[in-house]
């Protein structure tokens, strides 16, 4: 057990800090949340700067154009960029974290050459077409259908919870190429396709969340034609291909968020001190408890990262453990924030950033696997408890 960074790691951190100190002030002003083209340009611009400085695809293998950094370097990168207030991965999210790694692992040399460099350089934006209105937790029940017609698939169906769909160039799409039957279980018969978003038949409609924002979209596909050459992996093998993506994750998924939560908690303590609520032991101890909680979550992140480092990048089951606890803690944080602010302090006003963040926190126990699904995973895969009848 060692929590001190090596000399190389400290150097990496120092270089990064220096660069961030120089690069961040040069950024253009942040676009407004509903200026989608502006957000695309801003996010791609940041990615291009990372690329030029040698930080793009830090955690990607070298043969995919990445830097082959250790998980700890990646952790340092995420920690430092968050601390410095650098832009989030934003529109580059799917390309850098899902579609890109999938292509890197499963694509042909031609596919890698076509799609990976534009992601790293910040030239192209990807979105994700996995979930469907009828297939949420039960993702493999997806029904969007692709029928082979010569060299093309003809695709019909609908997708939901697609972020950045309005400005994406490509969509990593899961489709059913073999209908479910007695001999074809639902996890088979799925294929992974790269769909150009400007293909005829693709309609994107913004999906409004309870926070009032339109971060997500619904996507309707009406006989969209995609070349067979855009399929990554074998036909009907898309489920396995998709799962490969996860092996790039290496415990770093929530590093930035945990760092941000710790900063938020400190700000909340200052607010409580300023408005007098600090003198109420119920609130003060609640803040202390959450400080302990997020401290542990930060350490758990380091633990998961170093475990992934040992196992050579294969993610442990630590991800489910972390997500269960973190999503709950994040909701607690914003509930406590509302108590610290109180009605008189603006807890009911959207003019306070806390309130919007509180609304967003509600999705954490649902998105990317509900807490119920995560508990099943922990119970069945880690603890080996049997599936029910």
């Amino acid at each position: 057990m060692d929590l001190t960074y090596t000399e190389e790691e400290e150097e990496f951190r120092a270089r990064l800090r220096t660069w961030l100190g120089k690069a961040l002030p040069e950024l253009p002003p942040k676009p407004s949340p509903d200026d989608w083209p502006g957000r695309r340009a801003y996010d791609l611009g940041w990615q291009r700067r990372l690329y030029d400085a040698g930080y793009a695809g830090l955690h990607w293998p070298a043969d995919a154009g990445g830097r082959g950094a250790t998980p700890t370097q990646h952790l340092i990168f995420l920690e430092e960029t968050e601390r410095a207030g650098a832009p989030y991965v934003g529109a580059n999210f799917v390309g850098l974290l899902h579609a890109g790694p999938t292509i890197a692992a499963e694509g042909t040399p031609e596919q890698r050459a076509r799609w990976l460099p534009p992601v790293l350089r910040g030239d192209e934006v990807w979105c994700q077409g996995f979930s469907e209105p009828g297939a949420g937790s039960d993702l493999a029940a997806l029904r969007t259908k692709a029928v082979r017609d010569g060299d093309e698939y003809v695709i019909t169906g609908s997708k939901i919870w697609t972020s950045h769909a309005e400005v994406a160039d490509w969509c990593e799409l899961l489709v059913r190429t073999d209908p479910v039957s007695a001999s074809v279980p639902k996890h088979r018969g799925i294929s992974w396709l790269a769909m150009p978003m400007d293909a005829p038949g693709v309609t994107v409609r913004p999906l409004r969340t309870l926070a009032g924002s339109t971060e997500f979209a619904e996507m309707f596909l009406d006989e969209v034609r995609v070349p067979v050459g855009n399929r990554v992996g074998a036909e009907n093998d898309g489920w396995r291909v998709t799962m490969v993506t996860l092996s790039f994750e290496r415990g770093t998924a929530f590093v930035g968020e945990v760092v941000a939560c710790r900063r938020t908690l400190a700000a909340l303590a200052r607010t409580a001190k300023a408005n007098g609520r600090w003198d109420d032991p119920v609130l003060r101890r609640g803040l202390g408890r959450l400080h302990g909680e997020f401290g542990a979550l930060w350490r758990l992140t380091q633990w998961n990262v170093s475990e992934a480092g040992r196992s050579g990048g294969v993610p442990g089951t630590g991800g489910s453990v972390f997500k269960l606890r973190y999503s709950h803690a994040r909701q607690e944080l914003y509930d406590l924030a509302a108590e610290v602010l109180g009605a008189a302090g603006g807890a009911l006003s959207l003019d306070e950033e806390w309130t919007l963040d509180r609304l967003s926190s509600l999705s954490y126990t649902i998105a990317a696997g509900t807490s119920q699904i995560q508990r099943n995973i922990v119970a069945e895969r880690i603890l080996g408890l049997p599936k029910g009848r």
Partner: protein
Amino acid sequence: MRAVDFQLTEDQRDLRGGVRALLEGRYGRAALRASVDRGEGVDRGVDRGLWRELGEAGFFALRLPEEEGGTGLGLAEAVLVFEEAGRVLLPGPLVATHLAAGVVPGAARGTAVVTAFDLGGPFVAHLGGADAVLGMDGVPEGVPVRSVDPLTPLYRAAGPGAVPEALRDEGALLTAALQLGSALRTTELAVRYAKEREQFGQPVGAFQAVKHLCAGMLVRGEVARTAVYAAAVTGAPGEIAGAKLLADEAAVRNARDCLQVHGGMGFTWEADVHLHLKRAWVRAEQWRTAAQAEEVLAAELLAGSA
């Protein structure tokens, strides 16, 4: 032989049924969503037509004596009516206007919209177009703030800065009744969704985890119902504090669990669940917060134990 009967009387059932029918007709789901859409970004004030209809139906004058144009009913009946209003998320300063009946001209008949500084601070709800503020002469200028609840416009204004103390108990109880209605409604919404939505080849409500979420919602709702009804019958400050505490908790936590049962769909603007949660957050801050209610109860406990 008659016995203590905590159950609703025939008249009370009729009253509740009548109010439910009225609100279903006048403020069903389509009306709710229309007022959400209409209110986007700007406070268009209370729907005066609806307000008058509520007035005519006795919503505000319920507890006034008949000679003053009321129906001479009690807190128990008022609670039943407010529970129904909470179910359908009826907007507007219902509690304040009800409390103003017989005090502020027009409140009883719903021709006046009356609000109150019931948030313990500089914020006041529904100030735009309000005719009066409980316990104040005249209506102060207010600066609109963006409210978390699209159906409860909020203003920052100079006012008494405190809840009108004499009305605090009744205000808290009626607000608890609104919360109760919401808690019962989100239970229904969750159960309906759990029966319809299929995942992994069966309704999600067949999964024990979802089942138990729903069971917890029902329990919270029933405990809150008992507390609210009992407090309405006795009118005791301690019971009212307990009712507010339990109803706030039921409304907020049931809305949260309802959202969880709905999964991603619950996170959409289209689903009604966020409207329940946001309103429940607002109401939890009105008249008596949880911390205040706990202190009232603690003091009563100690006094009674001497």
